[in-house]
């Protein structure tokens, strides 16, 4: 798996082999499967009941029905998308298998593409039951958002992959000692991306930071849709442009960190 091979042909067979590897793993371990369902279900139940309580006691939230639970679902797409990517990567580190992959004909871009596909599969296993639970328990149908949901989903998943690619590079370079970054980095985005409140709540200087993050556009777009019944195409296009920059930057960072790992011999150790 080399930097130089980046510009050569991408093999669907090798990407398929990696997806097969993660599928075998997922199917061999019921705790892994259960975990995919457990956290999203817990989230939607907790926040769903909170939304019910607020809706009964506040006119604004009664009007803006679904913003909280919608935010929870979109946040989970962002967070679980990154975890789905990063956990598949960490499985290689935990299994001390990364050396085998690096020495195989697998290219970095193929490895990353297989992690992206796995993040979608893992996300689907967790999120689809979560949305059905929201529908049954709280009568919130996220699919009623229609086409805008696809725009929100794409922008959030692109950001989750960018973060996933970057933190995987950090773990590759620094070993499992850097594993905690995988679990925590996305939470640094949580307050800044204005998941549960509008950007206008932030102080002016911090609003600039918020608008530099693509997820902010998705959450603002979701609120505009639910409260004002308007789909903000401009927000989605801006988010898409930012995501393109983030994806390129994260891939570049991954290759730089991979090169640094080769330079420092970290691919052989991989430990703490």
């Amino acid at each position, binding site marked *: 798996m080399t*930097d130089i091979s980046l510009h050569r042909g991408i093999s669907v067979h090798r990407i398929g*082999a990696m997806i097969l*590897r993660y599928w075998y793993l997922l199917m061999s371990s019921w705790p892994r499967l259960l975990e995919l369902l457990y956290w999203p279900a817990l989230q939607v139940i907790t926040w769903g009941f909170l939304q019910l309580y607020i809706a009964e006691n506040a006119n604004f939230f009664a009007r803006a029905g679904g913003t909280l639970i919608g935010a929870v679902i979109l946040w989970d797409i962002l967070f679980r998308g990154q975890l789905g990517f990063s956990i598949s990567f960490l499985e290689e580190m935990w299994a001390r298998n990364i*050396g085998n992959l690096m020495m195989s004909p*697998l290219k970095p871009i193929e490895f990353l593409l297989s992690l992206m596909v796995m993040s979608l599969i893992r996300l689907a296993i967790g999120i689809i039951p979560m949305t059905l639970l929201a529908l049954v328990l709280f009568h919130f149908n996220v699919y009623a958002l229609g086409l805008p949901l696809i725009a929100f989903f794409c922008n959030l998943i692109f950001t989750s992959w960018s973060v996933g690619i970057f933190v995987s590079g950090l773990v590759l370079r620094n070993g499992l000692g850097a594993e905690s970054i995988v679990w925590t980095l996305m939470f640094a985005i949580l307050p800044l991306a204005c998941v549960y409140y509008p950007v206008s709540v932030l102080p002016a200087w911090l609003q600039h930071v918020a608008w530099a993050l693509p997820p902010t556009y998705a959450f603002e777009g979701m609120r505009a849709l639910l409260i004002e019944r308007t789909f903000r195409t401009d927000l989605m296009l801006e988010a898409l442009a930012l995501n393109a920059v983030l994806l390129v930057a994260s891939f570049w960072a991954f290759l730089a960190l991979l090169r640094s790992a080769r*330079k420092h011999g970290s691919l052989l150790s991989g430990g703490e």
Partner: protein
Amino acid sequence: MTENDKASSRPTVADRISSAAIAVDHLVKVYKQTRAVDDISFSLPHGSITGLLGGNGAGKTTTIAMIMGLVLPTSGRVQVLGYRMPEDSASVLGRMNFESPYVDMPMRLTVRQNLTVFGKLYAVKNLADRIAELAEDLDLGDFIDRANGKLSAGQKTRVALAKALINRPELLLLDEPTASLDPDTADWVRAHLERYRRDNNATILLASHNMLEVERLCDRVIIMKRGRIEDDDTPEAIMARYNRTTLEEVFLDVARGRVNGAKEAAR
């Protein structure tokens, strides 16, 4: 034939390097203040088995890692099957393979699942047949559908060897291939490696602490100490040079700095 013709037909250094299975040229690896590998050069012809000997910290693993492209050299050049590493590794990684104690195979996957995944990564044709062939050759049949994590050390080594041979590599790099194995299993693995080399004209480079293994398997030995090559010859020639009857005695001479005395005594 003119003098010019003779000169042009004589293999140049560049020819020797490009025709070798592995060519290492003035290779240096520095980690902060430590020179792990200090200006080593050697080339290995196709079909040879070479042992890389040396104590802990001699630079064997770093040398093998640079040949594989897992570690970038500080300076110098590595060429594998005619391609520069790691720049051209995409052209050569499918034709080589390795086994190392520094890596494992995924524990939850069965042996068959692991071999299937690696077979697909190496684009092995008729993969099911190849896995069946390896299962027979390496006696994996009893546990091929068992999770890798539930195997004994000896079984895991055989599985790792099966993974290393899945693509019928022209070049096999082995780091301590029989470490932690009982003598019977170790002997069995050595016999298999000898057979594989003979049947496939494969080139094998193995790092080992096991002198008997190197004596039995290798037609050439490179002894390393503190990142440098201390000696490089056939096992017989090296033992004769040091006036010793086993490589283990030679190893102890080198490790304990008795090199000059031993060589002078031999003279």
